[in-house]
């Protein structure tokens, strides 16, 4: 393990970790005043690939690696090996983002051999590259949609897709130190190339970036300075021994050149020399040899090493060699992406992994203290608004009164209304009462008198043919609205012939019953 620490860090920093073949590499970066500083680098022993252990060795633990805050803090990012990621490149009409998302989903579902629920994907829209390179006739699914073809009103969409199972496992591995971001390592390679290797060529921003590892080679298509496609070739430095290489073209070299041509065709570039191929190099002779082999195969190869001016800027603080920059190119690229505010990375982990920093933000927002403070402010606001409304209302009502009528008219109106309200409950409707009594269903009842006086029950006297009719009359009165407490006060039998009676009616022995009934009518008699 190597360790190259510098002084204590005070500003916002990023610790980036990447897995390269059978080891892990980490760098600690800081950008201050536009100048990038590599504060330290670290690599694990060969064969040690446990991310949790290595992160702990780098000083990372859960809860410490949230988002960068304005005044400082440490953020961790980790690279995901893009060997298991498939890239697609399609052209879609330049429409809204939601509509593009729908189109991407449909396209991917049609192309992938797995069901959609087993796939995680991310996409990024960008301009269509001009220059119109020729397309291969036997292009695969992603190139057949026209990578590099110019079409008006269309945008090129880069899609990265991977198996959910694979991604979930990686998320579980890194959750122990809760990195703020998980990035694709091929994006880190492209970023490192742009910052450290491209030099003047960087202005072209298009090309094939080849990063040769010990056991495999990462080939990235870069358009407009961003990753458009990536493929991993299973040939690395270990396959090119120095002894073999110094001679003429070996079988391995020929196979590698053939693989590269196939990759270029896959990317949509039929002519091998169309696009420059940037081979990242530490300046060693093996990579030079590989490059010359590719060149002799017809590719437009350029060997690139860390560019001196930028490298010098880094060296000021860290005293890193070109070899170190080359060795840590992937984590450095990842770290740079993390430091760039608003970097639009292909985040295939979006649905499966939420960084701890975002959770904390939510907690802070919904904390009882914040809720309490908001409630208190709202309460104070409600009291103030109520007070203001109460203060303003009487004047507003008074103004409306004055606008509606003069003071004299207003007083008259009020007096009149007040009088109506006073008189209405004092005015019994005796006409209605007489009608109610008159329509009661009791045959043979004859009323002799009715006595009404406010404040005492109404009294009625009359004659009934028999007791049943009298009771019926009582029940009928009780059923009337406003009439209550109907009481038969006294009764007396009248001899037949003593008073007129309807024919065929009469009490026992032919006589009638004389009665007095009292009752209450609404509130007037109480």
């Amino acid at each position, binding site marked *: 393990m190597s360790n190259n620490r510098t002084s204590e860090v005070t500003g916002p920093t990023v610790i980036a970790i990447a897995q390269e073949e059978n080891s892990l590499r980490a760098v600690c970066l800081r950008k201050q005043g536009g100048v990038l500083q590599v504060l330290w680098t670290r690599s694990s022993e060969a064969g040690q690939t446990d991310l949790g252990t290595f992160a702990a060795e780098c000083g990372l633990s859960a809860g410490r690696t949230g988002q960068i805050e304005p005044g400082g803090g440490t953020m961790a990012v980790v690279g995901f090996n893009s060997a298991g990621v498939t890239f697609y490149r399609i052209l879609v009409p330049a429409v809204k983002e939601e509509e593009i998302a729908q189109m991407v989903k449909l396209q991917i579902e049609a192309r992938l051999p797995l069901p959609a629920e087993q796939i995680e994907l991310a996409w990024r829209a960008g301009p269509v590259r001009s220059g119109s390179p020729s397309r291969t006739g036997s292009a695969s699914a992603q190139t057949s949609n026209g990578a590099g073809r110019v079409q008006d009103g269309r945008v090129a969409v880069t899609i990265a897709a991977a198996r959910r199972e694979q991604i979930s496992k990686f998320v579980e591995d890194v959750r122990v130190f809760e990195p703020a971001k998980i990035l694709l390592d091929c994006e880190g390679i492209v970023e490192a190339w742009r910052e450290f290797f491209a030099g003047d060529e960087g202005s072209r921003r298009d090309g094939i970036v080849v990063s040769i590892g010990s056991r495999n080679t990462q080939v990235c298509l870069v358009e407009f300075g961003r990753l458009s496609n990536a493929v991993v070739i299973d040939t690395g430095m270990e396959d090119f021994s120095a002894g073999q290489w110094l001679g003429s073209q070996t079988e391995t070299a020929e196979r590698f050149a053939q693989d590269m041509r196939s990759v270029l065709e896959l990317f949509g570039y039929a002519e091998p020399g169309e696009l420059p191929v940037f081979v990242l190099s530490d300046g060693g002779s093996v990579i030079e040899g590989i490059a010359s082999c590719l060149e002799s195969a017809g590719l437009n190869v350029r060997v690139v090493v860390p560019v001196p001016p930028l490298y010098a800027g880094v060296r000021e603080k860290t005293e890193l060699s070109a070899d170190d920059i080359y060795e840590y190119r992937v984590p450095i690229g990842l770290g740079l992406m993390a430091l760039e505010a608003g970097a639009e990375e292909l985040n295939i982990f979006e649905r499966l992994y939420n960084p701890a920093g975002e959770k904390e933000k939510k907690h802070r927002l919904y904390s009882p203290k914040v809720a309490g403070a908001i409630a208190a402010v709202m309460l104070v606001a409600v009291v103030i608004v109520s007070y203001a409304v109460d203060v303003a*209302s009487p004047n507003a*009502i008074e103004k409306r009164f004055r606008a509606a009528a003069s003071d004299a008219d207003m007083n008259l109106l009020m007096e009149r209304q007040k009088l109506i309200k006073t008189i209405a409950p004092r005015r019994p*409707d*005796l006409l209605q009462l007489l009608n109610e009594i008159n329509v009661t269903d009791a045959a043979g009842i004859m009323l002799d008198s009715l006595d009404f006086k406010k404040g005492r029950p109404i009294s009625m006297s009359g004659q009934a043919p028999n007791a049943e009719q009298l009771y019926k009359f009582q029940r009928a009165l009780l059923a009337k609205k406003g009439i209550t407490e109907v009481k038969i006060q006294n009764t007396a039998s009248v001899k037949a012939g003593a008073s007129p009676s309807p024919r065929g009616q009469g009490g026992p022995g032919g006589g009638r019953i004389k009665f007095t009934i009292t009752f209450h009518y609404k509130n007037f008699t109480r």
Partner: protein
Amino acid sequence: MKIRESMIGRLSEKEQRTVKIGAVCAAAILVFVISTKWFGHWGQVRKLLAAERSKLETISPDEAKQRGLLSVVPVLEIPQIEEKQKFLFRDKFDEQLKKAGIRSEPLEFLSTGKSQQGGYRLLRLKCSGKCRFGQILDLLASLKENPYLVGIEEMRMKCDTKNRQEIQLDLTVSTFVK
């Protein structure tokens, strides 16, 4: 700022606590005094507002409620002083009696009480006479149109034992006077 910091720095922990508690108490007293005055003023404002709303309610009541009131009191004249009002009321009532065909004995004013209702005293007017039941109904139906009437205070009807068509009516109606 520095002077304040140095002054506080010279105090012991207990003294600092005392100063803080004192400051909090002073602030609480200040808040209490201000809020008491403020709430007092608010209370007065609310009373004024309630009066204005009541006034508003008086002149512009609910439509259904107003319709109900007007069905009971369709016409109304603001009461005058007693000397004026009693004649206006008597003449109108006499006219209504005649219109109903009731031959009444001379109408008789009953003494007004001292009690006041809404700033008015109640003056009662009594009439007695013989009539038919239909005439009574006509009179009762037309009484609402008397703009001086407050209500019927008393009504006594009694059939003649010999002629049941004839009814002895004693009616007392009232009006408001200033």
